């Protein structure tokens, strides 16, 4: 396992993602212990679900910033460097378009559910901020990849 760049262990995204992960861990452990001790933690699943969303969003942005996405290298690694760079920019452009599509879909849904005040069943955790967060993250991912398609960075 290659060590991550030191700057990845700092910054808001890292702390949001790490906090989300650790919260899910604690909630689930308390829930298990509580269930076996016959003191069930009501709404543990809903709390975990709410904590997973920021962790997942932060992790996708972090992985994109680190250029850590899974790629098939069979053809590209045999290409000359200039062609490879061109392919990389083309891939980034497609990724930008894909996330723009996802972001549009997410915004559309957020707008549609805006006035329906969706919330979880037991703890009444509102879904609205979670939907906004997901839409913003998809938008951010789109911008990251569009930027890469114009100015390929050091992730290559």
């Amino acid at each position, binding site marked *: 396992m290659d060590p*991550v760049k030191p700057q990845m*262990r700092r910054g808001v995204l890292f702390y949001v993602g790490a906090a989300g992960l650790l919260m899910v861990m604690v909630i689930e452990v308390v829930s298990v212990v509580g269930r076996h001790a016959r003191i069930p933690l009501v709404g543990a*699943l809903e709390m975990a679900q709410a904590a*997973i969303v920021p962790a*997942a969003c932060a992790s996708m942005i972090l*992985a994109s910033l680190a250029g850590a996405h899974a790629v*098939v290298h069979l053809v*590209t690694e045999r290409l000359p460097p200039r062609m490879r760079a061109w392919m990389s920019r083309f*891939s980034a452009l497609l990724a930008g378009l894909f996330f723009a599509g996802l972001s549009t879909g997410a915004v559309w*849904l957020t707008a549609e559910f805006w006035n329906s005040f969706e919330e979880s069943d037991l703890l009444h955790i509102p879904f609205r901020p979670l939907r906004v967060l997901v839409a913003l993250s998809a938008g951010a991912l789109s911008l990251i990849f569009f930027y890469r398609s114009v100015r390929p960075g050091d992730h290559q």
Partner: protein
Amino acid sequence: MIGLIGVCALLVLLSVGVPIGVAMGLVGLVGMCVLLGIEPALIKSGVVLFESVSRYELGVLPLFLLMAHLCFAAGASRDFFAAAASVVGHRRGGLALATIAGCAGFGAVSGSSLATAATMGLIGLPEMRKRGYSTALASGAVAAGGTLGSLTPPSGALIVFGIIAEQSIGKLFTAAIIPALTQTLFYMATIVIVCRLRPSIAPPSARMSWAERRAAIFRVLDLAALVICVLTGIAVGWFTPTEAASVGSLLALVLCAIRKRLSWRSLGEALAQTLKTTGMLYLVIIGALIFAVFMSFTGLAEQVSGLVQGMHGSPMMAIVVITVLLLLLGSVLDGLALMLLTTPILLPIVTNLGFSPIWFGIFLVRTMEIGFIHPPIGINLYVIQSIAPDIPLSRVFKGVLPFLAADFVHLALIIAVPALTLALPAWLS
């Protein structure tokens, strides 16, 4: 027709280096735009995106990754190898056997073939070379042993399959136990046979005293207890896989603290690694789910299934054809891409033929593992070469050949005897 065009477009995008998740998602999104129109396609993709990132069951993935990274920080890989080497290291080929056992042990906490090969390669390979082992046997054992990380539960590949195929991750883990154990035994038997035929390639080493052996085994007892606790908990229903991953992560954290390996730096590194891999896997899963929705609209799987049934061949014959197809695809696609591309198409066919989706998951991961060690992709071979650049790739491949033969026999056994995978989940349920 549009389904076939979609599959071809996906293969082209993958080959030009588009990230796997993006390629699958983009083909799915564009395909749905063509089939359903732009508005439903965008809304459906938005639904998949939100449902994926807010899905409780998907929490299992980052938490098992966190457990793996914490175990790595606790020195699990070195200790597993040291314990196995203390028991069998003095025998001819003993260190190669220890590498396989270490890979099985570390595979159980890492859940990844690549991580297992890379980590055990750094530990086992120099040790075997120092003791005069043939570089072919040493590198082959590490490359093949690394694949155990994909099948040994809790496995990342099985979690991804469970999510894509909507199957119980707990059942998949339980079903993988016997195949992973038999695969380990097959690899060990291969080493024993190879060393019998050519004793010079793996000289015996000095025997360790019983006190040293006890100490080495004692050092992995906590790690073994962690793995057993997690797997037993899932199998007997103490907790769900997501809860098991959380309990495992917390125990790994405690284990790090007890072993005096817990610091802000090591915790930060484990969390950052976890987030990086999680982000990569989330994108892959979102893309694969959008692609799967597109595939379900095309009806391609039903058509292929009808075609297969129309041929009036036996289901076993169809599975053999699927195996050959997977192995061929596995030689040009990496494991994850292979699984994500083929699951939405092959799973309905296989279930229509009367096979269990759980069995198919194990079979698919096992086939995927073979792709990790056979050229031209054979990613584990390249991992070994990056660890030991002085060993030519041809030598690594020569070393992996006997293990590849064992893999084919093992895969044939999994196909011929489905009870090997299905008996344990059935018995425990």
